[in-house]
């Protein structure tokens, strides 16, 4: 019996999106926060940042904000986060 060949319509994730590295982190490592700046999350995000500083006093914490809440962070921001941190906490909210 002849087969029907179907073409896969799914788009492969671009290189930056499909990377998934194992998490390597220590409490005295480098941490970054990247906040999407959504107004409804300001208070909780400030609390998260203060908790990080309070609970992880030996860690180096860098904070970043997105200028456009609704767009993906520009590549230069991501590069900066990657350069300055081993682990990043990325904030969402709406």
């Amino acid at each position, binding site marked *: 019996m002849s087969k*029907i*060949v*179907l*073409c896969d319509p*799914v788009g492969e994730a*671009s290189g930056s*999106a499909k990377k998934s590295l194992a998490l390597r982190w220590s409490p005295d490592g480098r941490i970054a926060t990247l906040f999407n700046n959504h107004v409804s999350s300001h208070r909780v995000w400030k609390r998260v940042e203060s908790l990080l500083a309070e609970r992880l006093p030996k860690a180096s914490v860098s904070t970043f904000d997105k200028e*456009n809440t609704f*767009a993906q962070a520009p590549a230069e921001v991501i590069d900066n986060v990657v350069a300055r941190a081993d682990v990043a906490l990325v904030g969402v909210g*709406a």
Partner: protein
Amino acid sequence: MEASIAQSETSVLVPRPPIGYGCLERRCGISLKTVEVDSVEDAIERAYSEGWTDGLPVVPPTLGLVQRGLDYLGVEPSEIVGTIPPKNGIATYGNIVANCVMGGCLPEHMPVVIAAVRAMLQERFTLNGVQATTNSVAPLVIVSGPIVEQLGFNSRWGVFGGGSRANAAVGRAVRLILWNIGGGYPGKIDMSTMGHPGKYAFCIAEDREWNPWLPLHVERGLDEQDSAVTVVATDGPHQIGTGSGYASAEQVLTVLADSMMTIGNATMNAGGDMVLVVGPMTAQNLAARGYTKASVRLALQQLARKPAELVANCLFYQRPHPYHWSHVMKDPDDPTELVPLIRDVGQVVITVAGGMGSGTGFCSFCPGWHQGGGLACTEKIIIPQ
């Protein structure tokens, strides 16, 4: 069993001169994956089990149908058109055409879909947010120009509903692209709280014969003989019975304005682009009384205003938010000051579509998302030579 479309590339990848599709693409090493099934019934079910469809059955994207689309466009399956957020899936002509086939497109519908994809990928559309927001907006595709008649788009009775293959297939293809390439899965990446039926298909066409005003694409900088797609992220259509068969222009505009400025809609709270679909009877009556699209916008901007003390009851957006209405007020603490729905007249996309109807003069209003995205973007439709 997986194969590659490259096996049959000899008939697909015939070198062709640039036809306008070559401007954005670059070659990549991606080949279109394929799967084999035994029957049409299996193909339909396979689309479900693979997660290729959002719930409606789809036309099986067979190698033959996909190849036919690629042949018509004169493109290679591996050429990249763009990256569709939020998943950042790579949109190639191969997977775009496969989604077009699944949506029911004929090859000649595919340039319309490609124009819509390019429009959605313009920066000001902010597709990432449109796909992910808790708001219910979906990209509304508005087709205008000679292609409306050439491909049989419905621009008249039931324009938002069924009845036309072109509207339905293009709308479905756009949705499936956002699904399969952009990863807009509800509750996972697409966090739309309510959604709306336009998330299955949302494509209308502007009527050329009954539109007394400038065509939408001409207003947006293209030539009249061009055909184009304009996309705007909007809520579902809200019908407005204007009574324009009996009413004065001033009465019609008052009804339109009042119906557009409901205090719970996103545009009222946070600005941005919106779509007013003016029924042909209403458009012609307004035009007969000297109104153009531009003067309709100005009139609506003056009329569509509500007292701040009323709008302030809606805490959907709040004052710290940069798009909140208080930021466009002279004195945001004055409860009697009027909040404008239309912050800038350029935010009102007006198109003429729908049936002629009776004197009821039905129109539709589609509120937008907010001033930070989902904004109207237009792309010329490029027909392969």
